[in-house]
């Protein structure tokens, strides 16, 4: 399994290096290499996840190692969708290095499989709950990136001083659309993800809400993105302010993902 994951890492690293070089040098030939490498990596990665599942008998999203690898996989999937829909390749120069890093950490993390993992896999709610939430995180990461790109460019347009970055990023309209649609997708996933979590929880011990840190942060995150979407659609917060909200929202997402883990609680996994 490790060797397969190492191959995945190699493909992603190649993709990341070419994406970054293409971003710096504006070379299209490099982008092609990057996309092929990413496609190869994605196929291998999917295989690795399925193999993991078959081998250990539980859905490969339980231990930190698995979660990181799965998160990387959702990021690649999301970035591919963005590529397909908006051709916004600049996102790759940040996403792909991050994906490589996640896979790398997943490889070096060692965790013994526990009996608990197998017991969780008896319900279909576990895979649905976790998968939806990880995809929601990936969507919010895209919102975050697009928002940063918006803010950087908006700032330069206001100051009328254009740096190299300005010439390499997609237009304001494009990053704005990416942020808006990703936020909508992310909130939908988050809502369904939280709902299945509640369902599962009530099936286990009759309580819908455990009041643990992860749940509190998730609720905050949900509220913030719902506000963001409402503001965007009512057109009162277009552009800059919405972009700042996309950045702030992602800070909450990070708290939900990592912070809650550190504080402990009912949610055992990352």
């Amino acid at each position, binding site marked *: 399994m490790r060797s397969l994951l190492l191959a995945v890492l190699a493909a992603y690293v190649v993709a990341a290096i070419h994406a970054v070089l293409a971003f710096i*040098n*504006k*070379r*299209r*030939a490099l982008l092609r290499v990057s996309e092929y490498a990413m496609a190869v990596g994605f196929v291998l990665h999917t295989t690795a996840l399925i193999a993991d599942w078959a081998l250990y008998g539980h859905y490969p999203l339980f231990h930190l190692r698995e979660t990181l690898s799965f998160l990387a996989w959702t990021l690649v999937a999301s970035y591919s969708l963005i590529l397909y829909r908006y051709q916004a390749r600049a996102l790759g120069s940040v996403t792909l290095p991050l994906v490589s890093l996640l896979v790398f950490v997943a490889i070096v993390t060692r965790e013994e499989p526990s009996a608990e993992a197998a017991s969780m896999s008896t319900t279909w709610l576990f895979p649905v709950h976790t998968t939806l939430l990880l995809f929601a995180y990936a969507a919010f990461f895209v919102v975050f990136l697009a928002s940063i790109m918006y803010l950087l*460019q908006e700032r330069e*347009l*206001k100051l*009328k*001083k*254009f740096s*190299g970055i*300005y*010439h390499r990023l*997609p*237009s*304001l*309209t*494009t990053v704005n659309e990416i942020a808006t649609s990703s936020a909508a997708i992310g909130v939908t996933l988050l809502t369904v993800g939280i709902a299945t979590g509640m369902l599962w929880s009530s099936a286990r011990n009759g309580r819908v809400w455990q009041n643990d840190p992860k749940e509190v942060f998730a609720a905050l995150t949900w509220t913030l993105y719902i506000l963001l979407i409402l503001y965007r659609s009512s*057109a*009162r*917060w*277009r*552009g*800059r*302010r919405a972009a700042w909200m996309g950045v702030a929202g992602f800070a909450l997402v990070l708290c939900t993902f990592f912070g809650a883990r550190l504080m402990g609680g009912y949610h055992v996994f990352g």
Partner: protein
Amino acid sequence: MSIILVGVNHKSAPIAVRERLAFSEDACAATLRELVDGELIREGLIVSTCNRVEVLTETTSGRFDDSAERVIQFLSRSDVPRDFFESNLYKHVDDSAVRHLFRVASSLDSLVVGEPQVLGQVRRAYSIALDAGTAGRVLNRLVHHAFRVAKRVRTETGIGANAVSISYMAVELGKKIFDSLKGQTALLVGAGEMAELSARHLVNAGVSRVMVANRTDGSARQLAESFGGEAVSFTRLAEYLAEADVVICSTGADEYVITETMARKALHKRRNRPSFFIDISVPRNIDPAIGKIPNMFVFDIDDLESVVSSNIREREREAERAELIVESEIMQFQQSLRALDAGPAIGTFRQTLQDVAKLEFQRRRAQLGELTPEQEQAIEALLQATVNKISHPVLSQLRLNYDATDADKIEAWRDLFGLEE
């Protein structure tokens, strides 16, 4: 064989010299036909534009001075004294000539680096030479290679990416803010020349609706008609502002024509959709405070000029990368030229020897008596193999000389075996 380029450009010669040397298209063709004598100068091409007059020739090797001399004579014609322009001339041979043409085609040698018009001009010059029958094997290959280099430079570097004229900035900003100008609306306030030029660029980039507002309705209508746009009332400017994604302002007014209050109201009506303002007027006609409102961007003449000059610097940085592409392409071109040369020469040489063998075989055929078809084939194969074995070291040597572009030796080979090009 040798490639020679002689000419003047905007850096080496003032306009007074360039205009005397320039050729009209007809003169180009006529001059080329005379210049190319088939002996000293075998192929020729003239690029004559407002920034350059250059004569590119393919000539017999080792006779650089004679060839350059002949070109200079043609440049001077009967009416331009030589010392009037000789000090402005540059002469490039072989690699250096190839480099120069590649740089010209890639617009690295242009007045404004990265402006693409020059490629079209080289294309035109080439088609004139083709029609005149003075572009042959070498120049064909060279010019096509130059087109390829230009394409590579354009796609692999950002040399043509950023606007370097103020009138084009509106288009560039529009693309940055709206991604595409297709279907956007522009509002022209005042009917200045620069505003008109900007608006024309916008229309070319896909702006679908142009409104023109002017204090005198007559000239507004006139300008609007020329765009297929509409003239709108200057007094109701505030209302139209809400409909405009791009506003270009250049009136002679000495106060703000578009005030902050107007802009805020417009933004409200636009439901916060972004818009940008270009103010080409001095004194300014658009309140700079509008630039502080979210989703509104204001550029005055100074801003535009500083962006343009930073874009030119950005292009120059990209030009450094383009130079590397040019260098690597020069090497490729030289290689392709060598292959181009050695191929036919070797082919002819081989054919000549095989013909000799065949002829001899046929002469002696009668003395050999009855032969089975197998025997006959065997003899033919034997002759062929013998000829190939014997000629092999000779051909290898020939190929080596070509690879080293050793002109003298190649010339010697040609004389020795009567090889034609």
